[in-house]
């Protein structure tokens, strides 16, 4: 690996770090519209990461991944969610299960966990692969954390999609992922998005709210 490709990998990691920072931003935001904008930014950073990987790996099919991320996740999904929030008249502050500070600390702990996990698994890999895997893994775990610590269905969906951003980040960093997989992931996200939208309407129709805690009583848990 020459000096030029070394620095271009470092650039890739910097973009990956931007995706991770957006993951933390998602945990930090308290307003629904800010959460959606941050998610759009994360998707934008993901598209940049995919585009950069396409450039340095000389793999044109990754440009399609970048395009998919840009069009679907940075534009259509945030717009649709904005529209849904507007349409459903959802309360615009984010309700959290834990305080924001504790969520952020848990997030850093998860990044530490993913690094501890990645280090032994990739003992034979180079430091560069290790770093990109650790980054992607952290983004996935932060998405999970977001799903756990938010009451509202919309923010949980954003958490799910952030998790999925992490998966794509891992996929584009590893060499030789077939395009079929990516396209199917992208479309399944879109389908999932549509389904979530329908579910939002259904949930609200039945319970007059999108706070999923109200579903617990329905399930018979907290009586």
């Amino acid at each position: 690996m020459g000096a030029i490709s070394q620095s271009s990998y470092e650039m890739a990691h910097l973009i990956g770090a931007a995706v991770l920072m957006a993951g933390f931003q998602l945990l930090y935001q308290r307003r629904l519209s800010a959460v959606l904008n941050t998610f759009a930014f994360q998707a934008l950073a993901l598209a940049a990461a995919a585009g950069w990987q396409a450039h340095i790996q000389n793999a044109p099919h990754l440009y399609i991944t970048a395009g998919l991320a840009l069009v679907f996740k940075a534009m259509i999904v945030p717009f649709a969610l904005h529209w849904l929030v507007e349409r459903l008249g959802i309360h615009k502050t984010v309700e959290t299960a834990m305080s924001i500070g504790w969520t952020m600390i848990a997030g850093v702990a998860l990044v530490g966990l993913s690094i501890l996990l990645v280090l032994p698994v990739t003992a034979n890999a180079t430091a560069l692969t290790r770093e990109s895997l650790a980054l992607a893994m952290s983004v996935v775990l932060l998405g999970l954390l977001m799903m756990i610590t938010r009451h509202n269905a919309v923010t949980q969906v954003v958490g799910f999609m952030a998790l999925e951003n992490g998966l794509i980040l891992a996929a584009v960093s590893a060499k030789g992922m077939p395009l079929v997989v990516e396209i199917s992931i992208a479309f399944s996200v879109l389908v999932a998005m549509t389904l979530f939208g329908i579910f939002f309407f259904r949930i609200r129709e039945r319970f007059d709210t999108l706070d999923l805690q109200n579903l617990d009583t329905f399930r018979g848990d907290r009586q």
Partner: protein
Amino acid sequence: MSAVLAQIVQIFLVVALAPLITGWVRKVKSRLQGRIGASPLQPYRDIYRLLQKEAVVAHSASWVFRAAPYVTFSAVWLAAAVIPTFTTNLLLAPAADLIALVALLGLARFWTALAGMDVGTAFGGMGASREMMIASLAEPAMLMVSFSLSLISGTTSPTQIIAFILGGGVGIEVSMGLALAALIMVAIAENGRIPIDNPATHLELTMVHEAMVLEYSGRHLALMEGAAMVRLTLFMALIGGIFAPWGMAVPSPEMSGANVLAEMVGLAAFLAKCFVLATALAVFETMIAKMRVFRYADFLGGALLLGLLATIFLYVSEAV
């Protein structure tokens, strides 16, 4: 230029330039808000005017109140004098240290807070208490940034860190990016800029720094305001020097000193960096609203966590 001469130039440069930077930030902000705004040179006139005026001291004030402006200004000035701006060839460079820098800024802050409480007015005490709350959150973050920088370069001296980075010792590192983000957040808090504190406000409930220096007048106020301006310059020199050190003159062994041309380039680069950073600060401050006091912990906790992440990622990229 010899190290002694460069040091003397540096000492006076930071003080001479500081009001201009503050004035420029104010000018850009007023333009963005649709006002004409005062000339960027206005802070010089303000300080000159304050120096002419009589210093009024409250009856209840002790010697702490009178000493605080001098201690604060000297601590900040000393800190600014050792951060390389245009050359790393400074006489005091061996004494410069990021941890000492945090301590000097802490000293200045401690004395300002003492002075705020000394007179016994409600606002001074409130400002001091808030300032200490911000300090207790910002200082760990600043130290964390220092640790990750020193882990990368193997030294806590800003001069050597800059020389190390200029020498190509570090590529584009994830840790450097995270440390930069954390340092910018700390700098915003330390300088009392929006969203933490509003330097232009005199609204009772929102002021922090202004509340502490409310009782000052005349030359005391000039020193306190000067200290705030020099602190802003210091953080610009620190951020510009460590994360964009290009153009800075580095003494090379084959040209023993006397490299005036490189130092001129370094000076021009420093001015350009300050210009860019000040404009960026003004744009950022115009775009964002001030934060509630109880959200400071989240903001600065975020800076601390970013610093922590920077350190963690060092172990990923450097381990084994």
